[in-house]
Protein backbone atom coordinates (compact mmCIF):
# COMPACT_ATOMS: atom_id res chain seq x y z
CA UNK A 1 0.00 0.00 0.00
CA UNK A 2 1.23 3.44 -0.91
CA UNK A 3 1.82 5.77 2.02
CA UNK A 4 1.35 9.50 1.83
CA UNK A 5 3.20 12.29 3.59
CA UNK A 6 0.81 13.52 6.25
CA UNK A 7 0.43 17.09 7.39
CA UNK A 8 1.41 17.86 10.98
CA UNK A 9 -1.54 20.27 11.31
CA UNK A 10 -4.33 19.09 13.60
CA UNK A 11 -7.78 19.86 12.26
CA UNK A 12 -9.31 20.92 15.59
CA UNK A 13 -6.40 23.25 16.30
CA UNK A 14 -6.79 24.87 12.88
CA UNK A 15 -10.51 25.28 13.45
CA UNK A 16 -10.10 26.64 17.00
CA UNK A 17 -7.56 29.14 15.74
CA UNK A 18 -9.99 30.50 13.14
CA UNK A 19 -13.11 30.38 15.32
CA UNK A 20 -11.51 32.19 18.25
CA UNK A 21 -12.09 35.26 16.08
CA UNK A 22 -15.56 34.31 14.80
CA UNK A 23 -17.39 37.24 16.39
CA UNK A 24 -20.97 37.11 15.15
CA UNK A 25 -20.14 34.89 12.17
CA UNK A 26 -22.55 32.13 11.17
CA UNK A 27 -20.75 28.82 10.65
CA UNK A 28 -21.98 25.92 8.49
CA UNK A 29 -20.24 22.53 8.81
CA UNK A 30 -20.18 19.62 6.38
CA UNK A 31 -21.34 16.16 7.37
CA UNK A 32 -18.94 13.94 9.30
CA UNK A 33 -15.80 15.11 11.01
CA UNK A 34 -16.30 18.80 10.16
CA UNK A 35 -19.60 18.78 12.04
CA UNK A 36 -18.06 16.94 15.02
CA UNK A 37 -15.10 19.31 15.12
CA UNK A 38 -17.23 22.45 14.92
CA UNK A 39 -19.41 21.17 17.76
CA UNK A 40 -16.30 20.31 19.79
CA UNK A 41 -14.47 23.59 19.33
CA UNK A 42 -17.19 26.28 19.02
CA UNK A 43 -20.65 24.92 19.89
CA UNK A 44 -22.57 28.15 19.28
CA UNK A 45 -26.27 28.46 18.49
CA UNK A 46 -25.19 30.27 15.32
CA UNK A 47 -23.92 26.99 13.83
CA UNK A 48 -25.54 24.92 11.09
CA UNK A 49 -24.54 21.27 11.45
CA UNK A 50 -24.95 19.07 8.39
CA UNK A 51 -25.73 15.37 8.96
CA UNK A 52 -26.58 14.38 5.39
CA UNK A 53 -26.81 15.66 1.81
CA UNK A 54 -23.12 15.45 0.96
CA UNK A 55 -22.15 18.24 -1.43
CA UNK A 56 -24.73 20.76 -0.22
CA UNK A 57 -22.86 22.47 2.62
CA UNK A 58 -21.44 25.13 0.33
CA UNK A 59 -24.78 25.87 -1.44
CA UNK A 60 -26.43 26.15 2.00
CA UNK A 61 -23.72 28.62 2.98
CA UNK A 62 -24.51 30.64 -0.14
CA UNK A 63 -28.24 30.65 0.64
CA UNK A 64 -27.50 31.78 4.17
CA UNK A 65 -25.05 34.46 3.02
CA UNK A 66 -27.70 35.87 0.65
CA UNK A 67 -30.31 35.82 3.43
CA UNK A 68 -27.97 37.42 5.99
CA UNK A 69 -25.90 39.99 4.05
CA UNK A 70 -24.93 41.79 7.24
CA UNK A 71 -23.14 38.80 8.76
CA UNK A 72 -20.12 36.77 7.80
CA UNK A 73 -20.90 33.19 6.81
CA UNK A 74 -18.11 30.64 7.10
CA UNK A 75 -18.46 27.16 5.63
CA UNK A 76 -16.20 24.51 7.16
CA UNK A 77 -16.00 21.25 5.28
CA UNK A 78 -13.74 18.44 4.13
CA UNK A 79 -12.09 17.83 0.78
CA UNK A 80 -14.45 14.97 -0.15
CA UNK A 81 -17.57 16.99 0.59
CA UNK A 82 -16.12 19.97 -1.28
CA UNK A 83 -15.30 17.87 -4.36
CA UNK A 84 -18.87 16.55 -4.53
CA UNK A 85 -20.19 20.11 -4.80
CA UNK A 86 -17.24 21.61 -6.63
CA UNK A 87 -19.45 23.28 -9.26
CA UNK A 88 -20.95 25.38 -6.45
CA UNK A 89 -17.73 27.40 -6.42
CA UNK A 90 -18.73 28.75 -9.84
CA UNK A 91 -22.24 29.56 -8.60
CA UNK A 92 -20.73 31.50 -5.69
CA UNK A 93 -18.22 33.37 -7.83
CA UNK A 94 -21.04 34.43 -10.18
CA UNK A 95 -23.00 35.79 -7.20
CA UNK A 96 -19.89 37.27 -5.53
CA UNK A 97 -21.17 37.41 -1.94
CA UNK A 98 -18.67 39.55 -0.01
CA UNK A 99 -19.72 37.90 3.28
CA UNK A 100 -19.05 34.26 2.36
CA UNK A 101 -15.88 32.28 3.07
CA UNK A 102 -15.01 28.60 2.89
CA UNK A 103 -12.46 26.65 4.94
CA UNK A 104 -11.65 23.22 3.53
CA UNK A 105 -10.01 20.90 6.06
CA UNK A 106 -8.16 18.79 3.52
CA UNK A 107 -6.90 15.47 4.89
CA UNK A 108 -6.64 14.05 1.36
CA UNK A 109 -8.65 10.98 2.32
CA UNK A 110 -12.06 9.58 3.19
CA UNK A 111 -11.15 9.13 6.83
CA UNK A 112 -14.61 8.13 8.10
CA UNK A 113 -14.96 5.28 5.64
CA UNK A 114 -11.55 3.68 6.13
CA UNK A 115 -8.95 6.14 4.92
CA UNK A 116 -9.31 5.64 1.19
CA UNK A 117 -7.27 8.22 -0.74
CA UNK A 118 -9.23 11.29 -1.77
CA UNK A 119 -8.89 13.14 -5.04
CA UNK A 120 -6.74 15.86 -3.47
CA UNK A 121 -4.12 13.23 -2.58
CA UNK A 122 -3.31 13.49 -6.27
CA UNK A 123 -3.13 16.47 -8.60
CA UNK A 124 -6.49 18.20 -7.97
CA UNK A 125 -6.06 21.53 -6.19
CA UNK A 126 -9.18 23.00 -4.54
CA UNK A 127 -7.64 26.46 -3.99
CA UNK A 128 -6.64 26.56 -7.66
CA UNK A 129 -10.16 25.53 -8.69
CA UNK A 130 -11.59 28.33 -6.53
CA UNK A 131 -9.38 30.91 -8.23
CA UNK A 132 -10.25 29.51 -11.65
CA UNK A 133 -13.95 29.70 -10.71
CA UNK A 134 -13.56 33.42 -10.06
CA UNK A 135 -13.05 33.61 -6.31
CA UNK A 136 -11.49 36.89 -5.16
CA UNK A 137 -8.82 35.06 -3.22
CA UNK A 138 -7.71 31.60 -2.17
CA UNK A 139 -4.86 30.27 -0.04
CA UNK A 140 -3.39 27.01 1.19
CA UNK A 141 -2.23 26.61 4.80
CA UNK A 142 0.50 24.01 5.27
CA UNK A 143 2.17 25.02 8.55
CA UNK A 144 1.57 26.93 11.78
CA UNK A 145 2.65 30.21 10.18
CA UNK A 146 -0.01 29.85 7.49
CA UNK A 147 -2.64 28.86 10.06
CA UNK A 148 -2.00 32.16 11.85
CA UNK A 149 -3.18 33.97 8.70
CA UNK A 150 -6.43 32.03 8.28
CA UNK A 151 -8.68 33.97 10.67
CA UNK A 152 -8.15 37.35 9.06
CA UNK A 153 -8.17 35.80 5.57
CA UNK A 154 -11.54 34.09 6.15
CA UNK A 155 -13.29 36.52 8.49
CA UNK A 156 -12.01 40.04 7.79
CA UNK A 157 -11.37 40.58 4.10
CA UNK A 158 -14.19 40.79 1.55
CA UNK A 159 -15.16 37.44 0.05
CA UNK A 160 -15.82 35.19 -1.55
CA UNK A 161 -12.65 33.63 -0.16
CA UNK A 162 -11.56 30.02 0.12
CA UNK A 163 -8.76 28.56 2.23
CA UNK A 164 -7.53 24.99 2.14
CA UNK A 165 -5.81 23.76 5.31
CA UNK A 166 -3.80 20.60 4.70
CA UNK A 167 -4.44 18.61 7.89
CA UNK A 168 -3.32 15.30 9.33
CA UNK A 169 -5.52 12.44 10.50
CA UNK A 170 -8.11 13.12 13.17
CA UNK A 171 -6.84 12.13 16.60
CA UNK A 172 -9.80 13.24 18.71
CA UNK A 173 -12.89 11.40 19.82
CA UNK A 174 -15.91 12.51 17.80
CA UNK A 175 -18.53 14.53 19.67
CA UNK A 176 -21.98 14.82 18.23
CA UNK A 177 -24.42 17.72 18.09
CA UNK A 178 -28.15 17.00 18.12
CA UNK A 179 -29.40 14.65 15.39
CA UNK A 180 -32.88 16.17 15.65
CA UNK A 181 -33.21 18.05 12.35
CA UNK A 182 -36.20 20.28 13.22
CA UNK A 183 -34.60 21.11 16.58
CA UNK A 184 -31.37 22.19 14.85
CA UNK A 185 -33.38 24.49 12.56
CA UNK A 186 -35.47 25.93 15.40
CA UNK A 187 -32.40 26.62 17.54
CA UNK A 188 -30.56 28.41 14.73
CA UNK A 189 -33.55 30.51 13.64
CA UNK A 190 -34.20 31.54 17.23
CA UNK A 191 -30.58 32.68 17.60
CA UNK A 192 -30.38 34.46 14.25
CA UNK A 193 -33.10 37.01 13.52
CA UNK A 194 -34.22 37.11 9.89
CA UNK A 195 -32.74 39.95 7.89
Amino acid sequence: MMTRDRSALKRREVLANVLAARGDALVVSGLGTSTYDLFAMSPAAENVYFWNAMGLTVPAGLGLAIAQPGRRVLVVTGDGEMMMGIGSLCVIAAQAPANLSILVLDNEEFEETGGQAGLTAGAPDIAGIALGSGFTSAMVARDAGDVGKLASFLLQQPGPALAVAKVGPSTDEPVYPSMDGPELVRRFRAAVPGD
Partner: protein
Amino acid sequence: MSQTAAQIDDGWSRQVYALARLAGITLVTTVPDAGLTALLRLCVDDDDMRLVTLSTEEEGIGMAYGAWLGGTRALLCLQSSGTGNCINALALPAFAQCPCLMLVTMRGQEGEGNPAQFPMGGAVRAVFEAMGVVCMEAMTKEEVAPLFGQAEQLAFNDGKTAALLISQQVIGTKSFVK
Protein backbone atom coordinates in the same frame (compact mmCIF):
# COMPACT_ATOMS: atom_id res chain seq x y z
CA MET B 1 -32.03 41.43 -27.95
CA SER B 2 -33.97 39.27 -25.55
CA GLN B 3 -37.74 39.44 -25.45
CA THR B 4 -39.56 41.26 -22.70
CA ALA B 5 -41.77 39.34 -20.30
CA ALA B 6 -44.86 40.82 -21.97
CA GLN B 7 -43.79 39.46 -25.36
CA ILE B 8 -43.40 35.96 -24.00
CA ASP B 9 -46.54 35.82 -21.86
CA ASP B 10 -47.46 32.15 -21.60
CA GLY B 11 -50.71 32.39 -19.67
CA TRP B 12 -49.43 31.20 -16.28
CA SER B 13 -46.03 32.71 -15.43
CA ARG B 14 -47.38 36.15 -14.45
CA GLN B 15 -49.78 34.61 -11.95
CA VAL B 16 -47.11 32.34 -10.47
CA TYR B 17 -44.72 35.29 -10.21
CA ALA B 18 -47.41 37.38 -8.45
CA LEU B 19 -48.17 34.55 -6.02
CA ALA B 20 -44.45 34.06 -5.33
CA ARG B 21 -44.12 37.76 -4.52
CA LEU B 22 -47.16 37.59 -2.29
CA ALA B 23 -45.70 34.57 -0.47
CA GLY B 24 -42.55 36.56 0.28
CA ILE B 25 -40.26 34.56 -2.01
CA THR B 26 -37.22 36.69 -2.82
CA LEU B 27 -34.75 34.03 -3.96
CA VAL B 28 -35.26 32.01 -7.14
CA THR B 29 -32.72 29.37 -8.13
CA THR B 30 -32.63 27.55 -11.44
CA VAL B 31 -31.07 25.45 -14.10
CA PRO B 32 -33.23 26.96 -16.85
CA ASP B 33 -35.70 25.29 -19.17
CA ALA B 34 -37.47 26.70 -22.21
CA GLY B 35 -40.77 26.29 -20.36
CA LEU B 36 -39.51 28.59 -17.61
CA THR B 37 -38.54 31.45 -19.94
CA ALA B 38 -41.34 33.88 -19.07
CA LEU B 39 -41.20 33.24 -15.31
CA LEU B 40 -37.42 33.60 -15.13
CA ARG B 41 -37.60 36.81 -17.19
CA LEU B 42 -40.11 38.29 -14.71
CA CYS B 43 -37.72 37.42 -11.86
CA VAL B 44 -34.69 38.92 -13.63
CA ASP B 45 -36.60 42.15 -14.22
CA ASP B 46 -37.56 42.47 -10.53
CA ASP B 47 -34.93 44.21 -8.40
CA ASP B 48 -36.44 42.68 -5.26
CA MET B 49 -35.96 39.14 -6.54
CA ARG B 50 -32.59 37.46 -6.74
CA LEU B 51 -32.21 34.90 -9.51
CA VAL B 52 -29.32 32.46 -9.02
CA THR B 53 -28.20 30.23 -11.87
CA LEU B 54 -27.00 26.86 -10.55
CA SER B 55 -24.47 24.41 -11.91
CA THR B 56 -26.77 21.50 -10.98
CA GLU B 57 -30.29 21.42 -9.58
CA GLU B 58 -29.55 19.92 -6.15
CA GLU B 59 -27.64 23.07 -5.23
CA GLY B 60 -31.05 24.78 -5.16
CA ILE B 61 -32.17 22.42 -2.37
CA GLY B 62 -29.11 23.34 -0.31
CA MET B 63 -29.57 27.04 -1.03
CA ALA B 64 -33.24 26.91 -0.01
CA TYR B 65 -32.20 25.33 3.31
CA GLY B 66 -29.55 27.97 4.03
CA ALA B 67 -31.92 30.73 2.95
CA TRP B 68 -34.68 29.43 5.23
CA LEU B 69 -32.27 29.33 8.17
CA GLY B 70 -31.46 32.97 7.45
CA GLY B 71 -35.10 34.03 7.13
CA THR B 72 -35.46 34.07 3.33
CA ARG B 73 -37.91 32.09 1.20
CA ALA B 74 -36.68 30.42 -1.96
CA LEU B 75 -38.15 28.73 -5.03
CA LEU B 76 -36.25 26.19 -7.17
CA CYS B 77 -37.25 26.12 -10.86
CA LEU B 78 -36.08 23.18 -12.94
CA GLN B 79 -36.78 20.90 -15.88
CA SER B 80 -37.99 17.38 -15.14
CA SER B 81 -34.62 15.91 -16.16
CA GLY B 82 -33.06 17.75 -13.21
CA THR B 83 -35.31 16.11 -10.63
CA GLY B 84 -33.14 12.99 -10.65
CA ASN B 85 -30.14 15.11 -9.71
CA CYS B 86 -31.95 16.11 -6.52
CA ILE B 87 -32.62 12.70 -4.94
CA ASN B 88 -30.08 12.61 -2.11
CA ALA B 89 -30.38 16.38 -1.66
CA LEU B 90 -34.06 15.92 -0.78
CA ALA B 91 -32.94 14.11 2.37
CA LEU B 92 -31.93 17.52 3.74
CA PRO B 93 -35.33 19.27 3.93
CA ALA B 94 -36.92 15.90 4.84
CA PHE B 95 -34.56 15.50 7.82
CA ALA B 96 -34.93 19.13 8.90
CA GLN B 97 -38.68 19.27 8.14
CA CYS B 98 -38.23 22.70 6.64
CA PRO B 99 -39.77 24.26 3.52
CA CYS B 100 -38.63 23.28 0.05
CA LEU B 101 -40.64 24.51 -2.94
CA MET B 102 -40.03 23.40 -6.50
CA LEU B 103 -41.57 24.20 -9.85
CA VAL B 104 -40.85 21.58 -12.50
CA THR B 105 -41.53 21.93 -16.22
CA MET B 106 -42.08 18.50 -17.71
CA ARG B 107 -40.41 16.76 -20.63
CA GLY B 108 -40.90 13.19 -21.76
CA GLN B 109 -44.69 13.25 -21.82
CA GLU B 110 -47.27 13.09 -24.63
CA GLY B 111 -45.96 14.69 -27.80
CA GLU B 112 -42.32 14.56 -26.75
CA GLY B 113 -40.10 14.55 -29.83
CA ASN B 114 -36.97 13.31 -28.11
CA PRO B 115 -37.17 9.73 -26.82
CA ALA B 116 -34.11 10.37 -24.64
CA GLN B 117 -36.41 12.43 -22.40
CA PHE B 118 -38.80 9.55 -21.62
CA PRO B 119 -36.87 7.64 -18.91
CA MET B 120 -36.42 10.56 -16.49
CA GLY B 121 -39.62 12.38 -17.45
CA GLY B 122 -41.66 9.25 -16.75
CA ALA B 123 -39.99 8.66 -13.39
CA VAL B 124 -40.34 12.13 -11.86
CA ARG B 125 -43.38 11.46 -9.74
CA ALA B 126 -42.20 8.03 -8.54
CA VAL B 127 -38.77 9.40 -7.63
CA PHE B 128 -40.12 12.47 -5.85
CA GLU B 129 -42.80 10.57 -3.97
CA ALA B 130 -40.23 7.98 -2.86
CA MET B 131 -38.35 10.87 -1.24
CA GLY B 132 -41.49 12.17 0.46
CA VAL B 133 -42.11 15.10 -1.87
CA VAL B 134 -45.74 16.19 -2.19
CA CYS B 135 -46.35 16.30 -5.96
CA MET B 136 -49.12 17.98 -7.87
CA GLU B 137 -49.41 18.41 -11.62
CA ALA B 138 -51.05 21.17 -13.65
CA MET B 139 -52.57 19.80 -16.85
CA THR B 140 -53.91 23.17 -18.08
CA LYS B 141 -52.72 26.78 -17.88
CA GLU B 142 -55.65 27.60 -15.63
CA GLU B 143 -54.61 24.99 -13.08
CA VAL B 144 -51.08 26.30 -12.64
CA ALA B 145 -51.70 29.28 -10.33
CA PRO B 146 -54.12 27.61 -7.89
CA LEU B 147 -51.87 24.57 -7.60
CA PHE B 148 -48.81 26.76 -7.11
CA GLY B 149 -50.67 28.47 -4.28
CA GLN B 150 -51.33 25.08 -2.68
CA ALA B 151 -47.72 23.96 -3.08
CA GLU B 152 -46.44 27.23 -1.62
CA GLN B 153 -48.71 26.85 1.43
CA LEU B 154 -47.64 23.25 1.97
CA ALA B 155 -44.01 24.31 1.88
CA PHE B 156 -43.99 27.49 3.94
CA ASN B 157 -46.91 26.84 6.28
CA ASP B 158 -46.41 23.12 6.86
CA GLY B 159 -42.66 22.67 6.35
CA LYS B 160 -43.14 20.21 3.49
CA THR B 161 -41.14 19.61 0.37
CA ALA B 162 -43.65 20.35 -2.38
CA ALA B 163 -43.31 20.23 -6.15
CA LEU B 164 -45.64 21.59 -8.78
CA LEU B 165 -45.14 19.76 -12.06
CA ILE B 166 -46.26 21.65 -15.15
CA SER B 167 -47.37 19.21 -17.81
CA GLN B 168 -45.95 19.28 -21.31
CA GLN B 169 -49.57 19.88 -22.38
CA VAL B 170 -49.22 23.32 -20.82
CA ILE B 171 -45.76 24.28 -21.96
CA GLY B 172 -45.90 22.67 -25.41
CA THR B 173 -43.45 20.37 -27.10
CA LYS B 174 -40.12 21.06 -28.68
CA SER B 175 -39.83 20.36 -32.39
CA PHE B 176 -37.04 18.08 -33.59
CA VAL B 177 -38.12 18.10 -37.26
CA LYS B 178 -35.06 18.04 -39.51
